[in-house]
């Protein structure tokens, strides 16, 4: 393969991974829930691009749709129950989070480098489900059980919202 193309791909992957890491960090670091939700959405979008690049379009579509579904419901419920923090609380929170998480990107980087040494030569990736595959046959055929499981997981999530938030009102 063309070395320039490979370099571009590598650069693109590094940019995507960096963006995803920044989005994830912002999600846990930001004090305001709405901003944190936006940061998470950004992370999801970048993850979607990664999935498309890995030739997994259905997975990418599900990532977006599920994140925009159940998680949004949970966030809206949570945001409706909280009161804004005072300036003092906000400053204390930022100090606490910075102290706790500032080493995280470095740790992740070291783990990644370490794993690349441990795992050795890469294995060839198996062919992904082609984009043209009928979605119905995939969901109701090989992954029917997972679909049922995910319906149950969503139901449990909705029940969590009902129990932990709705009763309060």
């Amino acid at each position, binding site marked *: 393969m063309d070395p320039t193309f490979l370099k571009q791909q590598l650069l693109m992957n590094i940019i995507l991974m960096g963006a995803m890491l920044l989005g994830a960090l912002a999600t846990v670091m930001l004090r305001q829930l709405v901003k944190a939700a936006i940061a998470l959405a950004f992370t999801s979008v970048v993850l979607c691009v990664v999935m498309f690049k890995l030739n997994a379009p259905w997975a990418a579509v599900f990532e977006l749709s599920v994140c925009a579904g159940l998680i949004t419901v949970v966030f809206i419920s949570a945001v409706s129950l909280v009161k804004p923090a005072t300036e003092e609380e906000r400053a204390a929170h930022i100090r606490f989070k910075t102290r706790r998480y500032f080493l995280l990107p470095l740790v992740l980087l070291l783990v990644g480098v370490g794993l690349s040494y441990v*795992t050795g030569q890469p294995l060839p990736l198996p062919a992904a489900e082609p984009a043209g595959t009928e979605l119905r046959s995939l969901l109701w055929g090989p992954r029917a059980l997972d679909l049922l499981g995910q319906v*149950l997981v969503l139901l449990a999530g909705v029940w*969590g919202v009902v129990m932990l938030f709705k009763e309060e009102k």
Partner: protein
Amino acid sequence: MPSLLVILPLLAVLLLNLPLNFLRRLALPAALLLALYQAAFALGVLPACCAGCPTQERWFLNALDPLTSVLLLAIAIVAFVSVFVLRATAGEERREFNMLNLVFLAVAGMNGLVLVRDLFSLYVFLELASIASFILIAAHREMGGLEGAFKYLVMSALATMMMLASIALLLALSGSTSFGAVAEALQAHARHGYVLTALGLFLGGLLIKSGVMPFHGWLPDAYSAAPAAVSTLLAGIVTKVTGVYALIRLVLDVFGFTPATQQLLLIFGAISVVAGALAALGQSDMKRMLAYSSISQVGYILLGLATGTGLGIAAAVFHLFNHAIFKTLLFVNAAAVEKQTGTRDMNQLGGLAQKMPITGVTSLLAMFSTAGVPPLAGFWSKLLIIAALWLSGFHGYALLGIGASLLTLAYFLSLQRRVFFGLVRAGCENVREAGWALTLPSLLLAAILVGVGLALPWLIGTFLLPVKGF
């Protein structure tokens, strides 16, 4: 049909939530009926599974074997008992109904987990059981429960992240996530770096889920802070299925016994057996003591599994079943004591055996069974584990298991002395036996412990040893 064990709880949740008021009152009988149906189903298929008859293809969940049947039975018994405890302790009718819905979902998750033979499906059902448990722990919205649920959530998230990463690597290796395909690929690339990383990540995730030491940080808080019915369900079966069963199943069917896996199980098993028992000795909260006791007992299961022999694996599965029964019984009794006295602090209790005779006697039976006193069920499973260790040449670990049994007896005698024996403490004079919703399950579980113990000569050849022949 095994698929019904996942579909019926889902249907129950959907039907019971139709906008008809009388349906809410049917939730409790429906939960009990489902548990009874599941117990009858498991008992019905167990003899055929143990006799080695291949089960027929049934829709998408067709994987029945002795291990699955035993776990389905344990899930049914613990769920049945938890519903009784929920009735006795939930308080408001609305809260009871909401919690029952989550119990249905948790049971569906556990049933799915034991019935699937695919890594990703296993992950999905494991998540279902875990998510339902997080919410159940926090159901009363008290600070302790929320803290326990949050710790469990964070540690579980770490565990599932490791398992997902491992599944991704295994998928890259084998092109499939079915147990059979992954096992074949692992054999073909046994020494590849990817394989070792994937195995390490998956086993690490399962050890966190099992709550073995030193990954146990979440477990005492989750068990002790959860509402009584949830503690019973969580300690009795949820962590056993999501952690220990998954570990046994994957080691047997997918990963295989390598010397490294064996050493890993032996080391973590031994640490948990001893450190769990020592930590239990220092507790004054009744439920926290039981939580540390669980860690210690899970260590025994790992030691049995680590032998890799038929006897050791059968003993591990037997102890898993016994642990589900006696630990559920102990948590039911803790719920009865807390309900009647308003405290779990053992230093404020005393002489309750006079006031709560059924709770006192059943608690003593459960304690003896946990400590390994003959002829109760727990004695036989511990004996078989120690015998398997000795016969496999792990003499040091066998002696350690015997020594830790004495520690178990020590902390449980301390519990009995402080809570049930001696003079009645001031403030406990007017305490009475808890209602039928707590005494009936206690008697049922105690009867199982005694019955299984006495029936061992028949059980060992019929049900226990065939467990290894998946």
